[in-house]
């Protein structure tokens, strides 16, 4: 089976920091892949490389077995394969354009007729619970939750085969963070998506991911099935990371929760 | 090597590069003047001998790179030539008047800093109060009135009507009191705009600093409010102010031209201005060179002072991109 994402010996250096150090990684199609690490671990850089926003200094990256060019040529090539929801969805909407104009751009890029793209957009809005009037608004006029859904809609309009979610729980209260995660889970089932979740939140990734990689100082210190990485880690760093994660211990305390 | 030393070395190198570039620009500006360079630069007084001398000196018959080299060698060695009108060494003419301008600009700077910081702090400590509003309106009025207009009205009121202060000149050399009385009005004229500007800047940045978390932290540890403002907040609030003082110096030198003309005060400004009127270009050129040198040096000083005030500045420059 060909990998959805296949990275070989990727290296990238910014000044004195080795952001990516010999990263080799395979993401199986239709998997949810968790990329975890602390700040400065290189997980965001790796995501940007996959999206074509950073150029590798050496190494290769293939999506569905097609080797990818670097830079803007690479972007045109991969834009139909991979899309992303950025950490701060409100900031990922161009501030001086209406939501509708931003979504129409997808049609332009795909060469799709305006009627067709708007019909798909309307259907997606309904599916995501966005009021139809949202298209007439500017990004600063909608709430953070709505911006997040608009960002999801824009990514899905491209019909990608891979969807990357960058820190989908960052800055959210626990009572609402599940909203986006559940949405991603449903979309994954509906659309045969390969999902990559980039996050520092080990607990969430542990539950949502089929496979995962742990990054530290530009290197992948451990990767494998999620059950193995999170419940039987081999690398010292992973063990340390998991040990430092606060535990609820409700079970030990005799919680009668379900 | 400590970050601050590295910073100073880097800023020094950058200042030298800028200076070299500025001299080059001056050369280019002169080269592109349409017409015969010798007759333009020497003006109507140019005799054939003078022209020949001039062509020899500038190396007008040589290649451009050689001319640039000669130009630099003269600029660096301080050989600015001899004034055709007085027959004096141009360097000594400039050094005669330069202290007057430096005193004027320095006094203007001190007045703006003293009043700007004081008024800014007063306004920031009672935001929204009557005194804040009054100072705000006064600051805008100060900023928007051009220095030369202020100079005329100061002259009109305090010298011509009230006869409190002398009208013109820089005062007798060697008489500090006389020189000081000649300095008051022109320096005030120079500083009015910057008092307004600095008062607003200090107010804004002090208010911003006072709303920051570390000030709240100091309050949480019971540090008295007066000490927080004077000791902890003010130093941080002065960083953006010092940063604009680089521009401030340039503005002082620029406005010194007008103020010197109005008060008929000997200085670089009047020297250049009179040289332009007499089409005495070697003096114009030398005068410009010296103002650039002064300006670049002041900017370097401002950068270093700011780096001493805020340790993050030296560090950020040394950090690899």
């Amino acid at each position, binding site marked *: 089976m060909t990998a959805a994402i296949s990275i070989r010996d990727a290296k990238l250096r910014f000044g004195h920091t080795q952001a990516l150090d010999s990263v080799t990684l395979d993401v199986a199609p239709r998997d949810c892949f968790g990329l975890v690490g602390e700040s400065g671990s290189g997980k965001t850089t790796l995501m940007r490389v996959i999206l074509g926003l950073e150029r590798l200094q050496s190494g290769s990256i293939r999506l569905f077995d097609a080797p990818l060019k670097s830079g803007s040529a690479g972007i045109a090539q991969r834009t139909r394969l991979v899309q992303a929801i950025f950490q701060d969805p409100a900031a990922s909407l161009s501030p001086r354009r209406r939501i509708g104009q931003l979504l129409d751009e997808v049609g332009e890029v795909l060469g799709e007729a305006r009627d067709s793209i708007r019909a798909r957009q309307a259907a997606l809005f309904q599916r995501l619970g966005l009021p139809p009037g949202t298209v007439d608004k500017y990004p600063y006029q909608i709430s953070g939750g709505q911006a997040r859904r608009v960002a999801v809609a824009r990514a899905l309009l491209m019909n990608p085969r891979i969807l990357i979610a960058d820190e989908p729980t960052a800055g959210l209260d626990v*009572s609402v*963070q599940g909203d986006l995660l559940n949405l991603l889970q449903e979309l994954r*089932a509906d659309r045969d998506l390969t999902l990559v979740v980039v996050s520092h939140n080990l607990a969430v990734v542990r539950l949502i991911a089929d496979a995962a990689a742990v990054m530290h100082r530009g290197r992948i210190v451990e990767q494998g099935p999620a059950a193995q990485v999170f419940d039987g880690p081999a690398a010292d760093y992973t063990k340390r990371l998991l040990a430092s994660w*606060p*535990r609820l211990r409700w079970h030990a305390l005799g919680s009668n929760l379900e | 090597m400590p970050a601050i030393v590295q910073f100073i070395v880097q800023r020094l190198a950058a200042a030298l590069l800028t200076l070299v570039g500025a001299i080059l620009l001056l050369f280019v500006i002169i080269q592109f003047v349409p017409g015969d360079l010798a007759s333009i630069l020497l003006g109507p007084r140019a005799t054939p001998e003078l022209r020949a001398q001039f062509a020899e000196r500038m190396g007008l018959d040589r290649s451009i790179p050689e001319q640039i080299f000669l130009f630099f060698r003269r600029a660096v060695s301080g050989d600015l030539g001899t004034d055709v009108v007085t027959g004096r060494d141009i360097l000594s003419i400039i050094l005669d008047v330069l202290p007057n301008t430096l005193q004027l600009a320095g006094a203007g700077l001190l007045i703006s800093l003293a009043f700007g910081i004081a008024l800014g702090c007063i306004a920031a400590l009672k935001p929204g109060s009557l005194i804040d509003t009054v100072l705000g309106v006064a600051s805008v009025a100060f900023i928007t009135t051009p220095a030369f207009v202020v100079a005329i009205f100061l002259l009109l009121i305090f010298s011509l009507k009230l006869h409190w202060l002398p009208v013109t000149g820089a005062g007798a050399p060697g008489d500090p009191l006389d020189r000081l009385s000649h300095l008051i009005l022109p320096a005030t004229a120079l500083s009015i705009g910057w008092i307004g500007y600095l008062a607003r800047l200090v107010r804004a940045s002090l208010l911003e600093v006072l709303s920051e978390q570390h000030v709240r*932290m100091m309050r949480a540890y019971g540090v008295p409010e007066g000490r927080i403002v004077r000791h902890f907040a003010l130093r941080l609030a002065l960083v953006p102010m010092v940063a604009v003082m680089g521009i401030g110096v340039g503005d002082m030198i620029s406005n010194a031209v007008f103020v010197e003309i109005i008060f008929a005060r000997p200085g670089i400004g009047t020297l250049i201005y009179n040289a332009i009127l007499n089409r005495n270009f070697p003096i114009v050129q030398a005068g410009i060179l010296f103002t650039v040198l002064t300006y670049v040096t002041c900017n370097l000083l401002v950068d270093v002072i700011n780096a001493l005030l805020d340790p993050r500045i030296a560090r950020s420059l040394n950090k690899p991109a």
Partner: protein
Amino acid sequence: MSGAAISHLSVDFATKGGIHHAVRDISLAAGPGRILGLVGESGSGKSTVALALMGLLAGNAEVTSGALQLGSESYDLARAQATAALRGIRMAMIFQDPFASLNPVFSIRAHLTEVLSRRSPELDGEARNRAAMEALAAVGIDRPEIRLAQYPHELSGGMRQRVAIAMALLVRPDLLIADEPTTALDATVEAQVMQQICGLRDRIGCSILLITHSLGLVAQYCDDIAVMYAGELVEQGSVAAVAAKPGHPYARALLACEVTIDAPRGADARASRFRIIPGDLPDPLHLPSGCIFRTRCDMAIADCARIVPPPVTVNGEPGHVARCIRVNEK
């Protein structure tokens, strides 16, 4: 020392839309040498409680009632500057963002000695310096003599938060308030910083009010827990008791939403779903009648709209109370 107790604290904010009652009638107690975790989501008012105690609220805020009992003395929080004399002597605070809580143009030494000049004015410069160095060493900072001369930007976030803890250590307060001290930090650093906070408690035996949105942090490090929702305290008790049987539906829902690192994991990750609490926080200017949580509560009945629920002891456990009229039903 007999710990700290807050009673009937209420705070109003004047906003354009009207008066916003941000904190309403909150009573809390943290015993000596105990850590009380004050938990709540955004908009719960938990940070307002901390700032009200310290007397550091913004200008548009007003404490309308409340008292702080510290040892044998009581302070009326509604009076301006009620606790000003206690700051840096009997009370200290650690703030959320370590990158903003130290003044960037002053050295670490300047921060620490400033605290000492208030707390221990009898010390001379040399003694202050030594005390500052010892405090840094005590919070696990290597080579404190070098760190003292450094500036905040030269230190990592975790290191800066340790400096903040060292400042608190120098004060030896009766009550330490820590407002989300680890939210900006990575998990491994969070663990280290929390251990230092616990170490400080062990060393000086103070009461600690830990304000956090993380139930995990509370479960791991706190003795007692108090849960806030939309400006009200809905439940409090010992961590063990509340964890065993949360009485308030909001506390129960919040616990269920918390994703734990040791949660049972199904065989198929695709099947994982996450709990949420449907609905939004009530509009602060138009609060619902009766129970504050009833608009999002799945157990709400008609009475919930009429009765403002009083604190009810849960399960007959002393000290474990919840403000829900249906708490002991079943």
